[in-house]
Protein backbone atom coordinates (compact mmCIF):
# COMPACT_ATOMS: atom_id res chain seq x y z
CA UNK A 1 0.00 0.00 0.00
CA UNK A 2 1.35 3.46 -0.80
CA UNK A 3 0.60 6.38 1.40
CA UNK A 4 1.50 10.05 1.22
CA UNK A 5 4.69 10.93 3.03
CA UNK A 6 4.22 12.88 6.20
CA UNK A 7 6.57 15.80 6.60
CA UNK A 8 9.34 16.89 4.34
CA UNK A 9 12.38 15.36 5.98
CA UNK A 10 12.97 12.29 3.87
CA UNK A 11 16.16 11.58 5.82
CA UNK A 12 14.20 10.88 9.00
CA UNK A 13 13.98 7.17 9.88
CA UNK A 14 10.87 5.13 9.15
CA UNK A 15 9.39 3.36 12.17
CA UNK A 16 7.41 0.16 11.66
CA UNK A 17 4.51 -0.79 13.89
CA UNK A 18 6.11 -3.89 15.39
CA UNK A 19 3.04 -5.05 17.30
CA UNK A 20 -0.09 -3.25 18.41
CA UNK A 21 0.38 -3.58 22.19
CA UNK A 22 -1.26 -0.35 23.31
CA UNK A 23 -4.41 1.12 21.85
CA UNK A 24 -5.04 4.75 22.77
CA UNK A 25 -8.38 6.53 22.48
CA UNK A 26 -8.69 10.31 22.27
CA UNK A 27 -11.92 9.81 24.22
CA UNK A 28 -12.17 13.41 25.42
CA UNK A 29 -11.11 14.91 22.11
CA UNK A 30 -9.50 18.30 22.66
CA UNK A 31 -12.27 19.35 25.04
CA UNK A 32 -11.27 20.09 28.60
CA UNK A 33 -12.65 21.98 31.57
CA UNK A 34 -9.13 23.34 32.12
CA UNK A 35 -6.88 25.30 29.78
CA UNK A 36 -3.37 24.61 31.02
CA UNK A 37 -0.69 26.82 29.58
CA UNK A 38 1.56 23.84 28.78
CA UNK A 39 -1.06 21.67 27.07
CA UNK A 40 0.60 20.18 24.01
CA UNK A 41 -2.70 19.97 22.13
CA UNK A 42 -4.06 23.29 23.47
CA UNK A 43 -7.21 21.84 25.00
CA UNK A 44 -9.82 24.12 26.52
CA UNK A 45 -13.60 24.15 27.04
CA UNK A 46 -14.20 25.48 23.52
CA UNK A 47 -11.63 23.47 21.55
CA UNK A 48 -13.67 20.94 19.59
CA UNK A 49 -11.02 20.34 16.96
CA UNK A 50 -11.37 16.74 18.15
CA UNK A 51 -14.71 15.83 19.74
CA UNK A 52 -15.79 13.24 22.30
CA UNK A 53 -15.67 9.68 20.99
CA UNK A 54 -18.99 7.90 21.17
CA UNK A 55 -19.54 4.46 22.61
CA UNK A 56 -20.40 2.87 19.26
CA UNK A 57 -17.15 4.00 17.67
CA UNK A 58 -15.05 2.88 20.62
CA UNK A 59 -16.81 -0.49 20.61
CA UNK A 60 -15.96 -1.00 16.95
CA UNK A 61 -12.23 -0.45 17.62
CA UNK A 62 -12.26 -2.60 20.76
CA UNK A 63 -13.73 -5.33 18.63
CA UNK A 64 -11.10 -4.94 15.90
CA UNK A 65 -8.31 -4.77 18.50
CA UNK A 66 -8.81 -8.24 19.91
CA UNK A 67 -7.67 -10.25 16.90
CA UNK A 68 -4.64 -7.95 16.72
CA UNK A 69 -3.64 -8.96 20.25
CA UNK A 70 -3.79 -5.52 21.89
CA UNK A 71 -2.49 -5.74 25.46
CA UNK A 72 -3.53 -2.44 27.06
CA UNK A 73 -6.11 0.28 26.45
CA UNK A 74 -5.49 3.95 27.26
CA UNK A 75 -8.03 6.79 27.33
CA UNK A 76 -6.99 10.39 27.09
CA UNK A 77 -8.23 13.82 25.98
CA UNK A 78 -8.86 16.59 26.78
CA UNK A 79 -10.60 15.38 29.88
CA UNK A 80 -12.02 11.88 29.24
CA UNK A 81 -14.41 12.03 32.19
CA UNK A 82 -16.28 14.89 30.53
CA UNK A 83 -17.38 12.28 28.00
CA UNK A 84 -20.76 11.01 29.19
CA UNK A 85 -20.06 7.54 27.82
CA UNK A 86 -16.82 7.13 29.75
CA UNK A 87 -18.02 4.83 32.54
CA UNK A 88 -19.75 2.55 30.06
CA UNK A 89 -16.65 2.59 27.85
CA UNK A 90 -14.48 1.57 30.79
CA UNK A 91 -16.81 -1.19 31.83
CA UNK A 92 -16.78 -2.68 28.33
CA UNK A 93 -13.03 -2.25 27.96
CA UNK A 94 -12.28 -3.86 31.31
CA UNK A 95 -14.30 -6.87 30.22
CA UNK A 96 -11.54 -7.64 27.71
CA UNK A 97 -8.34 -6.05 29.03
CA UNK A 98 -6.62 -3.50 31.28
CA UNK A 99 -7.55 0.19 31.00
CA UNK A 100 -5.77 3.39 31.93
CA UNK A 101 -7.39 6.83 32.04
CA UNK A 102 -5.40 10.05 31.91
CA UNK A 103 -7.44 12.62 33.83
CA UNK A 104 -6.93 16.03 35.39
CA UNK A 105 -8.67 14.75 38.53
CA UNK A 106 -10.97 17.76 38.86
CA UNK A 107 -14.29 16.37 37.62
CA UNK A 108 -14.85 13.37 39.90
CA UNK A 109 -18.01 13.19 41.95
CA UNK A 110 -18.71 10.79 44.80
CA UNK A 111 -21.04 8.88 42.51
CA UNK A 112 -18.59 8.63 39.60
CA UNK A 113 -15.91 7.39 41.99
CA UNK A 114 -18.28 4.80 43.35
CA UNK A 115 -19.10 3.62 39.85
CA UNK A 116 -15.40 3.42 38.96
CA UNK A 117 -14.78 1.34 42.06
CA UNK A 118 -17.51 -1.10 41.09
CA UNK A 119 -16.29 -1.35 37.48
CA UNK A 120 -12.74 -1.93 38.66
CA UNK A 121 -13.70 -4.55 41.23
CA UNK A 122 -15.74 -6.67 38.86
CA UNK A 123 -12.89 -6.89 36.33
CA UNK A 124 -10.02 -9.34 36.19
CA UNK A 125 -7.94 -6.49 34.78
CA UNK A 126 -6.37 -3.38 36.27
CA UNK A 127 -7.97 0.02 35.96
CA UNK A 128 -5.25 2.65 36.30
CA UNK A 129 -6.13 6.28 36.93
CA UNK A 130 -3.44 8.76 36.04
CA UNK A 131 -3.98 12.19 37.52
CA UNK A 132 -2.01 15.17 36.18
CA UNK A 133 -0.76 17.58 38.82
CA UNK A 134 2.15 19.80 37.84
CA UNK A 135 3.48 21.03 41.15
CA UNK A 136 3.53 20.08 44.81
CA UNK A 137 1.53 23.13 45.92
CA UNK A 138 -1.03 25.64 44.63
CA UNK A 139 1.88 28.07 44.15
CA UNK A 140 3.71 25.70 41.81
CA UNK A 141 0.74 24.04 40.09
CA UNK A 142 -1.91 26.71 39.68
CA UNK A 143 0.08 29.15 37.49
CA UNK A 144 0.22 26.31 34.93
CA UNK A 145 -3.10 24.52 35.37
CA UNK A 146 -5.31 27.34 36.63
CA UNK A 147 -6.57 28.91 39.82
CA UNK A 148 -7.76 26.37 42.41
CA UNK A 149 -6.79 23.32 40.34
CA UNK A 150 -4.23 22.01 42.84
CA UNK A 151 -6.76 21.72 45.64
CA UNK A 152 -9.37 20.32 43.30
CA UNK A 153 -7.10 17.65 41.82
CA UNK A 154 -5.76 16.74 45.24
CA UNK A 155 -9.34 16.30 46.41
CA UNK A 156 -9.84 13.99 43.42
CA UNK A 157 -6.79 11.97 44.46
CA UNK A 158 -8.06 11.85 48.04
CA UNK A 159 -11.42 10.46 46.88
CA UNK A 160 -9.72 7.86 44.68
CA UNK A 161 -7.44 6.71 47.49
CA UNK A 162 -10.36 6.52 49.88
CA UNK A 163 -12.16 4.32 47.37
CA UNK A 164 -9.16 1.97 47.31
CA UNK A 165 -7.38 3.16 44.14
CA UNK A 166 -3.67 3.81 43.85
CA UNK A 167 -3.69 6.65 41.31
CA UNK A 168 -0.52 7.39 39.37
CA UNK A 169 0.27 11.09 39.62
CA UNK A 170 1.98 12.47 36.55
CA UNK A 171 3.87 15.74 36.68
CA UNK A 172 5.04 17.59 33.58
CA UNK A 173 8.54 18.73 34.36
CA UNK A 174 8.38 22.51 34.04
CA UNK A 175 11.30 23.00 36.46
CA UNK A 176 15.02 22.37 35.89
CA UNK A 177 15.97 18.69 35.97
CA UNK A 178 18.24 19.15 38.99
CA UNK A 179 15.13 19.89 41.05
CA UNK A 180 13.44 16.56 40.30
CA UNK A 181 14.44 14.97 43.60
CA UNK A 182 13.32 17.93 45.68
CA UNK A 183 9.99 18.25 43.83
CA UNK A 184 9.38 14.52 44.08
CA UNK A 185 10.14 14.31 47.78
CA UNK A 186 8.16 17.42 48.68
CA UNK A 187 5.16 16.06 46.83
CA UNK A 188 5.45 12.62 48.43
CA UNK A 189 5.25 14.32 51.83
CA UNK A 190 2.19 16.35 50.83
CA UNK A 191 0.45 13.30 49.39
CA UNK A 192 1.14 11.25 52.52
CA UNK A 193 -0.32 14.06 54.62
CA UNK A 194 -3.51 13.91 52.57
CA UNK A 195 -3.77 10.18 53.22
CA UNK A 196 -2.04 8.69 50.18
CA UNK A 197 0.45 6.42 51.94
CA UNK A 198 2.20 4.88 48.96
CA UNK A 199 2.02 7.47 46.23
CA UNK A 200 3.00 6.53 42.71
CA UNK A 201 4.50 9.51 40.90
CA UNK A 202 5.82 9.86 37.35
CA UNK A 203 7.67 12.94 36.20
CA UNK A 204 7.36 13.46 32.46
CA UNK A 205 9.10 15.82 30.07
CA UNK A 206 7.01 18.55 28.48
CA UNK A 207 6.34 18.43 24.75
CA UNK A 208 7.09 21.62 22.88
CA UNK A 209 3.84 21.56 20.95
CA UNK A 210 0.58 23.49 21.22
CA UNK A 211 0.44 25.85 24.20
CA UNK A 212 3.76 24.60 25.52
CA UNK A 213 5.52 25.81 22.36
CA UNK A 214 4.38 29.30 23.34
CA UNK A 215 4.93 28.93 27.10
CA UNK A 216 8.54 27.75 26.79
CA UNK A 217 9.73 27.35 23.20
CA UNK A 218 8.97 25.35 20.04
CA UNK A 219 11.26 22.54 18.88
CA UNK A 220 14.39 23.65 17.11
CA UNK A 221 15.31 22.18 13.73
CA UNK A 222 18.22 20.36 15.40
CA UNK A 223 15.82 18.41 17.61
CA UNK A 224 15.12 15.65 15.11
CA UNK A 225 15.91 11.93 14.94
CA UNK A 226 18.30 10.84 12.21
CA UNK A 227 18.92 7.38 10.73
CA UNK A 228 22.26 7.11 12.53
CA UNK A 229 20.64 7.82 15.88
CA UNK A 230 18.43 4.75 15.46
CA UNK A 231 21.39 2.39 15.13
CA UNK A 232 21.53 0.23 18.23
CA UNK A 233 18.52 2.09 19.70
CA UNK A 234 15.74 -0.02 21.23
CA UNK A 235 12.81 1.18 19.11
CA UNK A 236 10.45 -0.39 21.66
CA UNK A 237 11.04 2.83 23.59
CA UNK A 238 9.01 4.70 20.98
CA UNK A 239 5.28 4.42 21.53
CA UNK A 240 4.64 4.39 17.76
CA UNK A 241 6.50 1.05 17.44
CA UNK A 242 3.77 -0.61 19.49
CA UNK A 243 0.71 1.58 19.48
CA UNK A 244 -1.83 3.65 17.57
CA UNK A 245 -4.31 6.32 18.71
CA UNK A 246 -7.97 6.39 17.74
CA UNK A 247 -9.71 9.77 17.50
CA UNK A 248 -13.24 10.76 16.52
CA UNK A 249 -11.92 11.05 12.99
CA UNK A 250 -9.67 8.12 12.33
CA UNK A 251 -6.47 6.62 13.61
CA UNK A 252 -3.33 8.65 14.29
CA UNK A 253 0.19 7.41 14.86
CA UNK A 254 0.36 8.47 18.52
CA UNK A 255 -1.42 10.67 21.08
CA UNK A 256 1.24 13.36 20.78
CA UNK A 257 0.74 14.10 17.10
CA UNK A 258 -3.02 14.03 16.60
CA UNK A 259 -2.88 17.61 15.30
CA UNK A 260 0.00 16.98 12.90
CA UNK A 261 -0.98 16.66 9.27
CA UNK A 262 0.34 13.36 7.99
CA UNK A 263 0.08 11.68 11.36
CA UNK A 264 -3.38 10.37 10.50
CA UNK A 265 -2.84 6.97 8.99
CA UNK A 266 -6.30 5.59 8.21
CA UNK A 267 -9.77 4.75 9.43
CA UNK A 268 -9.31 1.23 10.73
CA UNK A 269 -6.48 -0.18 12.84
CA UNK A 270 -5.58 -2.33 9.88
CA UNK A 271 -5.31 0.73 7.60
CA UNK A 272 -3.16 2.52 10.16
CA UNK A 273 -0.64 -0.27 10.61
CA UNK A 274 1.90 1.07 8.13
CA UNK A 275 5.25 2.70 9.01
CA UNK A 276 5.64 6.32 10.12
CA UNK A 277 8.48 8.71 9.34
CA UNK A 278 9.90 10.09 12.59
CA UNK A 279 10.38 13.65 11.35
CA UNK A 280 8.73 15.59 14.18
CA UNK A 281 10.26 17.50 17.05
CA UNK A 282 8.14 15.49 19.50
CA UNK A 283 9.82 12.34 18.16
CA UNK A 284 13.05 13.72 19.54
CA UNK A 285 11.52 13.99 23.04
CA UNK A 286 10.37 10.37 22.79
CA UNK A 287 13.82 9.34 21.61
CA UNK A 288 15.59 11.05 24.51
CA UNK A 289 13.15 10.13 27.30
CA UNK A 290 11.69 6.82 26.05
CA UNK A 291 8.34 5.25 26.95
CA UNK A 292 6.96 8.49 28.38
CA UNK A 293 3.33 7.75 27.59
CA UNK A 294 3.01 4.22 29.01
CA UNK A 295 2.34 3.51 32.67
CA UNK A 296 5.87 2.35 33.29
CA UNK A 297 8.53 4.78 32.19
CA UNK A 298 9.26 8.35 33.21
CA UNK A 299 11.24 9.53 36.17
CA UNK A 300 11.01 8.46 39.84
CA UNK A 301 13.54 8.87 42.60
CA UNK A 302 16.25 6.66 44.14
Amino acid sequence: MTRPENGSRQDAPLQQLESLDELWFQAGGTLCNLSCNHCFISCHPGNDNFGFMDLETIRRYLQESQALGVKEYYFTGGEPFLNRDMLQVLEETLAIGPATVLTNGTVFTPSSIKALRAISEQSLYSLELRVSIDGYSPQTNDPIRGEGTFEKALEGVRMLVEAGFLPIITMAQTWPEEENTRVFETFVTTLKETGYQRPRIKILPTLHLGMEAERSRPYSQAERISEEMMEGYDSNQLLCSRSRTVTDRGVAVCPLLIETPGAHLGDSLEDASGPFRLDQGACYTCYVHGAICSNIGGWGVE
Partner: protein
Amino acid sequence: MSSSSPGKIALFGGIYANHLALEAALADMATRNITGIYCLGDLGAFGPNPDKVYPLLKDHGVKTLAGNYDDSLARDLPDCQCGYTDPRDNHFARLSYQYTYRNTSEENREWLRSLPGEIRFEFAGRRVLLCHGSPRRQNEFLWSSTTPTHFLQKLCKDYAADVIAVTHTGLKWQRELPSNKLFINTGALGRPENDGSRETWYTILGEEGGRITAEFIPVSYDSEALAIEMRAEGLPEEFSETIESGWWTTCLEILPAKERLLGRY
Protein backbone atom coordinates in the same frame (compact mmCIF):
# COMPACT_ATOMS: atom_id res chain seq x y z
CA MET B 1 6.59 -42.96 29.19
CA SER B 2 3.39 -44.57 27.87
CA SER B 3 0.99 -42.49 25.80
CA SER B 4 -1.86 -43.09 28.23
CA SER B 5 0.02 -41.54 31.11
CA PRO B 6 2.31 -38.66 30.28
CA GLY B 7 3.51 -38.46 33.89
CA LYS B 8 4.04 -35.17 35.65
CA ILE B 9 6.43 -32.35 34.95
CA ALA B 10 7.82 -29.76 37.34
CA LEU B 11 8.40 -26.15 36.25
CA PHE B 12 9.86 -23.21 38.08
CA GLY B 13 11.66 -19.94 37.46
CA GLY B 14 13.17 -17.05 39.37
CA ILE B 15 15.52 -18.94 41.68
CA TYR B 16 17.20 -15.64 42.53
CA ALA B 17 20.10 -17.51 44.20
CA ASN B 18 17.74 -18.97 46.80
CA HIS B 19 19.54 -22.33 46.96
CA LEU B 20 17.65 -23.35 50.11
CA ALA B 21 14.26 -23.02 48.43
CA LEU B 22 15.61 -24.85 45.38
CA GLU B 23 16.88 -27.69 47.54
CA ALA B 24 13.53 -27.95 49.35
CA ALA B 25 11.59 -27.90 46.08
CA LEU B 26 13.78 -30.62 44.54
CA ALA B 27 13.27 -32.77 47.65
CA ASP B 28 9.51 -32.25 47.38
CA MET B 29 9.55 -33.19 43.69
CA ALA B 30 11.38 -36.43 44.54
CA THR B 31 8.25 -37.60 46.42
CA ARG B 32 5.84 -36.96 43.53
CA ASN B 33 6.65 -39.15 40.49
CA ILE B 34 7.99 -36.25 38.49
CA THR B 35 9.35 -37.31 35.10
CA GLY B 36 10.99 -34.06 34.03
CA ILE B 37 12.16 -30.87 35.73
CA TYR B 38 12.49 -27.54 33.91
CA CYS B 39 13.85 -24.20 35.04
CA LEU B 40 12.60 -21.10 33.22
CA GLY B 41 15.55 -18.89 34.07
CA ASP B 42 16.85 -16.15 36.39
CA LEU B 43 19.19 -18.24 38.52
CA GLY B 44 20.69 -15.24 40.31
CA ALA B 45 19.52 -11.92 41.86
CA PHE B 46 18.49 -10.84 45.40
CA GLY B 47 19.99 -13.91 47.12
CA PRO B 48 23.43 -14.93 48.43
CA ASN B 49 26.24 -17.02 46.89
CA PRO B 50 24.76 -17.57 43.43
CA ASP B 51 27.19 -20.40 42.61
CA LYS B 52 25.40 -22.74 45.05
CA VAL B 53 22.46 -23.06 42.66
CA TYR B 54 24.38 -24.59 39.74
CA PRO B 55 25.37 -28.00 41.19
CA LEU B 56 21.79 -28.52 42.39
CA LEU B 57 20.43 -27.94 38.89
CA LYS B 58 23.09 -30.13 37.27
CA ASP B 59 22.84 -33.00 39.78
CA HIS B 60 19.07 -33.21 39.33
CA GLY B 61 19.18 -33.00 35.55
CA VAL B 62 17.10 -29.83 35.49
CA LYS B 63 16.64 -28.67 31.91
CA THR B 64 17.23 -24.94 32.07
CA LEU B 65 16.56 -22.00 29.76
CA ALA B 66 18.04 -18.52 30.01
CA GLY B 67 16.29 -15.61 31.69
CA ASN B 68 17.29 -11.98 31.33
CA TYR B 69 19.58 -12.25 34.36
CA ASP B 70 21.34 -15.29 32.96
CA ASP B 71 21.68 -13.63 29.57
CA SER B 72 23.24 -10.55 31.19
CA LEU B 73 25.75 -12.61 33.17
CA ALA B 74 26.55 -14.78 30.16
CA ARG B 75 27.24 -11.81 27.94
CA ASP B 76 28.96 -9.64 30.60
CA LEU B 77 26.32 -6.95 30.21
CA PRO B 78 26.44 -3.97 32.58
CA ASP B 79 22.90 -4.53 33.94
CA CYS B 80 20.29 -7.23 34.50
CA GLN B 81 17.77 -6.16 31.80
CA CYS B 82 15.00 -6.64 34.33
CA GLY B 83 13.05 -3.92 32.59
CA TYR B 84 12.58 -1.62 35.57
CA THR B 85 12.18 2.05 34.78
CA ASP B 86 11.96 3.57 38.26
CA PRO B 87 15.28 4.90 39.62
CA ARG B 88 14.80 3.40 43.11
CA ASP B 89 13.99 0.01 41.60
CA ASN B 90 17.01 0.32 39.35
CA HIS B 91 19.23 1.22 42.28
CA PHE B 92 18.43 -2.09 44.02
CA ALA B 93 18.55 -4.01 40.76
CA ARG B 94 22.07 -2.66 40.23
CA LEU B 95 23.24 -3.66 43.71
CA SER B 96 22.00 -7.21 43.31
CA TYR B 97 23.33 -7.55 39.77
CA GLN B 98 26.79 -6.33 40.69
CA TYR B 99 26.91 -8.69 43.67
CA THR B 100 25.71 -11.62 41.55
CA TYR B 101 28.16 -10.84 38.76
CA ARG B 102 31.12 -10.72 41.18
CA ASN B 103 30.11 -14.01 42.78
CA THR B 104 29.33 -16.11 39.71
CA SER B 105 32.31 -18.18 38.56
CA GLU B 106 33.58 -18.03 35.00
CA GLU B 107 32.76 -21.74 34.69
CA ASN B 108 29.12 -21.09 35.59
CA ARG B 109 28.92 -18.13 33.26
CA GLU B 110 30.20 -20.43 30.52
CA TRP B 111 27.37 -22.83 31.36
CA LEU B 112 24.84 -19.97 31.13
CA ARG B 113 26.14 -19.27 27.63
CA SER B 114 24.99 -22.75 26.60
CA LEU B 115 21.38 -22.25 27.70
CA PRO B 116 18.59 -21.93 25.11
CA GLY B 117 16.13 -19.02 25.14
CA GLU B 118 13.13 -21.35 25.01
CA ILE B 119 12.31 -25.06 25.33
CA ARG B 120 9.60 -26.89 23.43
CA PHE B 121 8.25 -30.40 23.92
CA GLU B 122 5.07 -32.43 23.54
CA PHE B 123 3.15 -33.36 26.63
CA ALA B 124 -0.04 -35.45 26.48
CA GLY B 125 -0.21 -34.67 22.79
CA ARG B 126 -0.08 -30.89 23.35
CA ARG B 127 2.67 -28.52 22.23
CA VAL B 128 4.33 -26.97 25.28
CA LEU B 129 6.47 -23.83 25.01
CA LEU B 130 8.59 -22.72 27.96
CA CYS B 131 10.23 -19.31 27.98
CA HIS B 132 11.25 -16.61 30.44
CA GLY B 133 9.19 -13.41 30.04
CA SER B 134 7.09 -14.10 26.98
CA PRO B 135 7.69 -15.95 23.71
CA ARG B 136 8.43 -12.63 22.02
CA ARG B 137 10.56 -10.84 24.60
CA GLN B 138 12.77 -12.30 27.31
CA ASN B 139 12.01 -9.49 29.74
CA GLU B 140 8.33 -8.88 29.04
CA PHE B 141 6.22 -8.78 32.19
CA LEU B 142 3.05 -10.84 31.94
CA TRP B 143 0.95 -9.97 34.99
CA SER B 144 -2.49 -11.42 35.42
CA SER B 145 -4.23 -8.03 35.57
CA THR B 146 -2.60 -6.60 32.45
CA THR B 147 -2.64 -9.61 30.14
CA PRO B 148 -5.84 -9.99 28.13
CA THR B 149 -7.03 -13.42 27.14
CA HIS B 150 -7.14 -12.43 23.46
CA PHE B 151 -3.46 -11.46 23.71
CA LEU B 152 -2.58 -14.90 25.11
CA GLN B 153 -4.58 -16.59 22.36
CA LYS B 154 -2.59 -14.63 19.80
CA LEU B 155 0.69 -15.73 21.43
CA CYS B 156 -0.42 -19.38 21.22
CA LYS B 157 -1.24 -18.90 17.56
CA ASP B 158 1.84 -16.88 16.59
CA TYR B 159 4.21 -19.20 18.44
CA ALA B 160 2.46 -22.48 17.56
CA ALA B 161 1.87 -23.65 21.14
CA ASP B 162 -1.01 -25.13 23.16
CA VAL B 163 0.56 -24.50 26.55
CA ILE B 164 2.85 -21.55 27.29
CA ALA B 165 4.67 -21.23 30.61
CA VAL B 166 6.70 -18.20 31.70
CA THR B 167 8.12 -16.60 34.87
CA HIS B 168 9.96 -13.19 35.26
CA THR B 169 7.26 -11.33 37.23
CA GLY B 170 7.56 -13.26 40.49
CA LEU B 171 3.79 -13.71 40.77
CA LYS B 172 2.15 -17.00 39.81
CA TRP B 173 -1.12 -17.24 37.91
CA GLN B 174 -2.70 -19.32 35.20
CA ARG B 175 -5.52 -18.93 32.73
CA GLU B 176 -7.37 -21.52 30.69
CA LEU B 177 -7.85 -20.29 27.15
CA PRO B 178 -10.48 -21.28 24.60
CA SER B 179 -9.83 -24.43 22.53
CA ASN B 180 -8.10 -26.28 25.31
CA LYS B 181 -5.08 -24.01 25.58
CA LEU B 182 -3.39 -22.98 28.79
CA PHE B 183 -1.16 -20.12 29.92
CA ILE B 184 0.91 -20.37 33.11
CA ASN B 185 3.13 -17.92 34.93
CA THR B 186 5.04 -20.09 37.39
CA GLY B 187 5.85 -17.18 39.71
CA ALA B 188 9.20 -17.41 41.52
CA LEU B 189 10.89 -20.17 43.46
CA GLY B 190 13.35 -17.76 45.04
CA ARG B 191 11.20 -14.99 46.44
CA PRO B 192 7.89 -15.01 48.33
CA GLU B 193 5.08 -13.52 46.33
CA ASN B 194 4.25 -10.32 48.16
CA ASP B 195 1.42 -11.80 50.21
CA GLY B 196 2.94 -11.79 53.69
CA SER B 197 3.79 -15.48 53.56
CA ARG B 198 7.32 -16.88 53.34
CA GLU B 199 6.45 -19.70 50.99
CA THR B 200 7.65 -19.73 47.42
CA TRP B 201 6.20 -21.68 44.51
CA TYR B 202 6.77 -24.19 41.76
CA THR B 203 4.35 -25.72 39.25
CA ILE B 204 3.38 -29.27 38.36
CA LEU B 205 2.03 -29.94 34.88
CA GLY B 206 -0.25 -32.92 34.70
CA GLU B 207 -3.05 -34.28 32.58
CA GLU B 208 -6.64 -34.89 33.55
CA GLY B 209 -9.34 -36.13 31.18
CA GLY B 210 -7.51 -34.90 28.10
CA ARG B 211 -6.77 -31.46 29.54
CA ILE B 212 -3.39 -30.26 30.71
CA THR B 213 -3.51 -28.95 34.24
CA ALA B 214 -1.16 -26.77 36.23
CA GLU B 215 -0.96 -27.07 40.00
CA PHE B 216 0.98 -24.55 42.07
CA ILE B 217 2.96 -26.18 44.88
CA PRO B 218 4.07 -24.14 47.91
CA VAL B 219 7.65 -24.58 49.08
CA SER B 220 8.62 -24.13 52.71
CA TYR B 221 12.31 -23.82 53.44
CA ASP B 222 14.62 -22.39 56.07
CA SER B 223 14.08 -18.73 55.22
CA GLU B 224 15.76 -17.60 58.43
CA ALA B 225 18.97 -19.33 57.40
CA LEU B 226 18.76 -17.63 54.01
CA ALA B 227 18.27 -14.20 55.58
CA ILE B 228 21.29 -14.78 57.84
CA GLU B 229 23.39 -15.75 54.84
CA MET B 230 22.18 -12.67 52.92
CA ARG B 231 23.16 -10.36 55.76
CA ALA B 232 26.55 -12.06 56.07
CA GLU B 233 27.09 -11.33 52.39
CA GLY B 234 26.27 -7.67 52.91
CA LEU B 235 23.20 -7.70 50.67
CA PRO B 236 20.69 -4.87 51.21
CA GLU B 237 18.50 -5.21 54.30
CA GLU B 238 15.47 -4.66 52.04
CA PHE B 239 16.15 -8.03 50.37
CA SER B 240 16.37 -10.06 53.57
CA GLU B 241 13.31 -8.27 54.91
CA THR B 242 11.31 -9.60 51.94
CA ILE B 243 12.52 -13.15 52.60
CA GLU B 244 11.47 -12.86 56.26
CA SER B 245 8.22 -10.95 55.91
CA GLY B 246 6.90 -12.20 52.58
CA TRP B 247 6.31 -8.60 51.42
CA TRP B 248 8.19 -7.03 48.52
CA THR B 249 10.18 -3.98 49.51
CA THR B 250 11.77 -3.10 46.15
CA CYS B 251 10.97 -3.32 42.44
CA LEU B 252 7.40 -2.26 43.15
CA GLU B 253 6.86 0.45 40.56
CA ILE B 254 6.38 -2.04 37.75
CA LEU B 255 3.38 -3.66 39.48
CA PRO B 256 -0.01 -2.90 37.94
CA ALA B 257 -2.71 -1.54 40.26
CA LYS B 258 -4.39 -4.83 41.15
CA GLU B 259 -1.14 -6.61 41.99
CA ARG B 260 0.21 -3.59 43.85
CA LEU B 261 -2.91 -3.39 46.01
CA LEU B 262 -2.33 -6.94 47.25
CA GLY B 263 1.05 -6.05 48.72
CA ARG B 264 1.97 -3.98 51.73
CA TYR B 265 4.26 -1.39 50.09
